[in-house]
């Protein structure tokens, strides 16, 4: 099956659960590779590989501080993805949960 290269498509890049875990970590702040290795207990090459993919699709930004490379999320690029995710099952699952809360609420008010 022909697939677009992961490196070219930010949506495919976040479809990988490891990279989503990495995004979740970076949502807490800035990290160096060493810090990510400690937090996620991944090997250093594994961390570097996933960071590099996210960097290539512009979801993660890198800056240098002395000899350190520090990574953070690029919120401008992540927002459209997050909005797009809303179209998925999560949208319907969320809707069905909202309906449940609403039904409970209005029936309580009737009593």
């Amino acid at each position, binding site marked *: *099956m022909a697939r677009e290269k992961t490196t070219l498509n930010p*949506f*495919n890049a976040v*479809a990988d*659960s490891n990279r*989503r*875990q990495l*995004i*979740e*970590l970076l*949502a*807490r702040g800035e990290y160096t590779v060493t810090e990510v290795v400690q937090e996620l207990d991944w090997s250093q090459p594994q961390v570097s590989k996933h960071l590099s993919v996210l960097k290539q699709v512009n979801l993660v930004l890198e800056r240098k501080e002395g000899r350190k490379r520090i990574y953070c*999320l690029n*919120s401008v690029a*992540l*927002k*459209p*993805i*997050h*909005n*797009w*995710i*809303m*179209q*998925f*099952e*999560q*949208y*319907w*699952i*969320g*809707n*069905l949960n*909202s*309906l*449940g*809360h*609403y*039904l*409970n609420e*209005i*029936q309580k008010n009737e009593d």
Partner: protein
Amino acid sequence: METMQKVEPTIIEKEYNAPIKLVFDAWTKVEHLANWQFPMKGFKCAFKETDISPGGRTLHKMTAPNGFEMWLLTKYEEIIPNHTIVFRQYNSDENGEILPNPQMPNWPKELQTTIKLEESDNKTKLQLIWQPITPSEEEATAFDMSRSEHGNGWAGGLANLEQYLEQQ
């Protein structure tokens, strides 16, 4: 000969502690829909068009807590009281013009949602069936890929990101 792509629909089931009439009304009356038709707490929902009938359509705006707005056009195909509701929903602009999805050109353009209701002991079982209609091969693949981690949830486990984006 046209090759039809077969795609398994996504099916989500849920049981509500409410009579079937109320659940049906919640799906078919705007005064109910506006109170719940959003995926998370903190969202708002406002209707601009309100014709919920076979062949009719609604247009509503969903506003996320971070202020992001999304217009949704819903075209109703079939409504059987206390039983079935079939519709297709699209991302649109505020005039109900369907928007293309430049970020994901292969996402299915026609997605049909079927709501089936069944009553038992004053509770209501709901089945939501979500499927692309006559998708191209690329669309079928995109749809399948989006739920490759079904159960785990493609968007699941992104609570930090959720919070982070709200603060941006």
